């Protein structure tokens, strides 16, 4: 049996809600998506880790998920690892005002409306995974 794997890489930014949403939406996809295997990597490992980490985007077709329009995950992946297959800017999905909220950042402060934002972004990630060309998918024997 072969398994298709896609990398999903979140900025997890600590300064604003967009980073929290990017992290939790990425986790949701990793935990719940069944039709395709997803893997992730801690972004700072590009510099703190080794060659294996820096090869991430070369090994897996990778989607970056950024909380704001600085697009740190996208730019760092392209700078240190390789070309990405897709990019999501959470601020475009939930609105700039929500993404840049610096008051509600902790998980425990999230309300129903924020959980809906996580679902919305997770949906966008799944859609983007679905749009990746099958030719670029890494097929590993399980």
């Amino acid at each position, binding site marked *: 049996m072969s398994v298709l794997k896609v990398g999903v890489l*979140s*900025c*997890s*930014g*600590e*300064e604003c809600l967009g*980073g929290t949403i990017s*992290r*939790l939406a*990425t*986790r*949701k996809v990793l*935990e719940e998506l069944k039709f395709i295997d997803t893997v*992730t*990597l*801690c*972004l*700072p*490992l*590009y*510099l*703190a*880790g080794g060659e294996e980490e820096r090869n991430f985007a070369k090994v897996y077709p990778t989607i970056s998920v*950024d909380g704001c329009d*600085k697009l*740190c*995950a996208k*730019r*760092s992946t392209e*700078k240190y690892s390789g070309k990405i297959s897709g990019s999501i800017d959470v601020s475009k999905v939930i609105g700039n005002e929500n993404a840049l909220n610096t*008051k509600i*950042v*902790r*998980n*425990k402060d999230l309300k129903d409306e924020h959980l809906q934002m996580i679902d919305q972004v997770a949906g966008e990630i799944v859609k983007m995974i679905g749009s990746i060309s099958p030719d670029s998918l890494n097929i590993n024997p399980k």
Partner: protein
Amino acid sequence: MYKKVKVVPCSGIGKVFGLMAREAVLKTVIELCPDKSETVCLAYIVTGDKAVKEKIEGYDCITVDGCPKMCAAKNVTLIGGVVVEEVNVLDTVKEHKGKKFGSPTQLSDDGEVVINEIAGKIARKINEIN
């Protein structure tokens, strides 16, 4: 005038310890020491952009990591931050043997207890500096 201490967590996405680092830092900068500290996105630091370098270079920084790879400490050092304290969540976790701290997505009640303890330690250090 105080120069706010930069407190930077790893926010590691694979294990609960990354979430613990993140939540401990956010509790510190939002609730415990909002006037004396602030956080800076680690992903932004990784980009090496001039604007983020200016925010970090030469400033006192406390890093909080969730695994021995110490990503926050290494990346803050690389961009020129003065790391005055390297906190590793695992050092505090060891004192709570047998407890379940939650998942990379959600902390348990025991996880909240530990992050409150870590946040208290970080706040004490900030108050020593400022």
